[in-house]
């Protein structure tokens, strides 16, 4: 129902240690964001792309499609950065509107390109993680990082409930559409309102039933569950360390220049 979720359970990287994957993701993200360099972005884009597509087995075109998810945001914000309205024309281009200019500078274009690449590289990094690691494994990593128990338990439940509610909402929407509930904009809005309120009522009812079911399995206020362990591998840790050291080196060299 959620494409990324479906794909990550089929990833060939799924049974690798989630902690490793998380460390790789966060460290690489850190270098992307801190260095903000085109070179680092390029390295990261290629590396995570290879990992996700080749090692993880995510289909190439679907991966490309996912990289375009933040496209609208990217285009609009880039326009905002590059375009300027000013009385003096800048060096890249300038369109005169009366006594003003709609203009952009080379520096701002360079800045925007750098930003786009950094953002795309970061997204590819995030995708490496979400295309290879089921949320339940991620929650376990957070637990090991001493995230408060209440948050962990909420995340565990919310992740499951999301799918219960999505199933209900899509079933109700289908039923509404079967009765012409999408015939025009106003009817669609009404249908959406009905659906959402019915969904909330169902959600509240379900939460009570689930609580009863948990209680009947001796729930005492603490959710304890076992986790399947996929122990970290020394060689992989070494690779990650090497890669991050490499990124560090590149960052330092670029700074010194």
């Amino acid at each position, binding site marked *: 129902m959620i494409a990324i979720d*479906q794909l990550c359970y089929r990833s060939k990287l799924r049974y690798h240690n989630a902690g490793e994957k998380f460390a790789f993701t966060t460290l690489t993200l850190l270098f992307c964001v801190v260095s903000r360099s085109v070179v680092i972005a390029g390295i990261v884009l290629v590396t995570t792309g290879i990992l996700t597509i080749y090692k993880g087995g995510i289909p190439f075109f679907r991966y490309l499609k996912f990289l375009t998810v933040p496209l609208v945001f990217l285009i609009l914000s880039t326009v905002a950065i590059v375009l300027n309205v000013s009385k003096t024309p800048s060096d890249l281009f300038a369109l005169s509107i009366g006594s003003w200019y709609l203009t952009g500078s080379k520096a701002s274009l360079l800045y925007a390109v750098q930003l786009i690449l950094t953002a795309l590289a970061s997204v590819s990094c995030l995708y490496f993680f979400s295309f290879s690691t089921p949320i339940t494994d991620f929650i376990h990593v957070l637990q090991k990082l001493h995230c408060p128990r209440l948050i962990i338990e909420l995340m565990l439940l919310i992740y499951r409930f999301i799918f219960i509610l999505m199933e*209900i909402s899509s*079933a109700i929407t289908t039923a509404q559409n*079967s*009765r012409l509930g999408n015939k025009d904009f106003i009817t669609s809005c009404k249908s959406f309102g*009905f659906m959402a309120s019915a969904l909330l009522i169902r959600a509240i009812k379900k939460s009570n039933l689930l609580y009863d079911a948990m209680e009947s399995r001796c729930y005492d206020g603490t959710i304890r569950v076992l986790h399947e362990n996929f122990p970290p591998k020394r060689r992989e840790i070494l690779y990650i360390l090497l890669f991050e050291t490499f990124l560090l080196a590149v960052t330092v060299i670029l700074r010194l220049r």
Partner: protein
Amino acid sequence: MKDIILKAQELYFSYDDENTHSLNGLSLEIQRGKKVAFMGANGSGKSTFFLCCNGIHRPSSGTLFVDGKPIDYSKKGLLDLRQKVGIVFQDPDNQLFSASVYQEISFGILNLGISEEEAQKEVEKVIADLEITPFRHKPTHALSGGQKKQVSIADILVMHPQIIILDEPAAALDPKHTQKVNHIVDEMTQQGITVLMSTHDVDYAYQWADQIFLFKDGRVLSQGTPTEVFADQNALEETNLHQPTVMKLYFRLCEKGILDPSFPVPKNLQELEQYIENIHL
């Protein structure tokens, strides 16, 4: 000439990337006014086919003819189609979304663009017909499962479709409400509505249906009259179904020479009992 109301020609459909629940070259023909049962494992494509019938899903290839015309997937075409083909979903909780029974039932018919007064009349009529009056003023979420089912059927009946599809109408109902629903279904047929129903209840399908389709892996494995389909031992085994008890015992009794095999196969328990009653040893 046969009056074909629904015809599927080599339908293919698959959900994003899953292989289950998909259609793999489904072809079938249904005559107007018939009672048709669809059987087969969950995930064999019954519900997917139903959702194709009213245009919620669009087959990736193949054509579906309703009333002799291929489905028109334009906005207007779909609205017309959905007026003709109504689906009563399996779980009423996934169909009912209004707080009040009245509002719920009127939703579909008002979307047809009918005047409020006329809609009101129709709603009142269906409330009376389906015996919803005793609980019509209760909020929908306080209804019992069986009552919700009645309302979800009323939802569709009020729109006067030519074809009604019932997805496992008796699932999770208690005997009393199963009877009630079966009764309502019988009345639909009497009104000339073509009824398509998916069910896992072999004995019910055997006695109710004019025609049965056994689905497997998104296509029709076996079809025909109940007696034909349930005589096909291979198909039954492949779909994990068993022969209806009445039919099985009738054949056993025939084998032993107790009943006369030249009579038509009894359609239900009453008929078989009648046969036994008439035995003169």
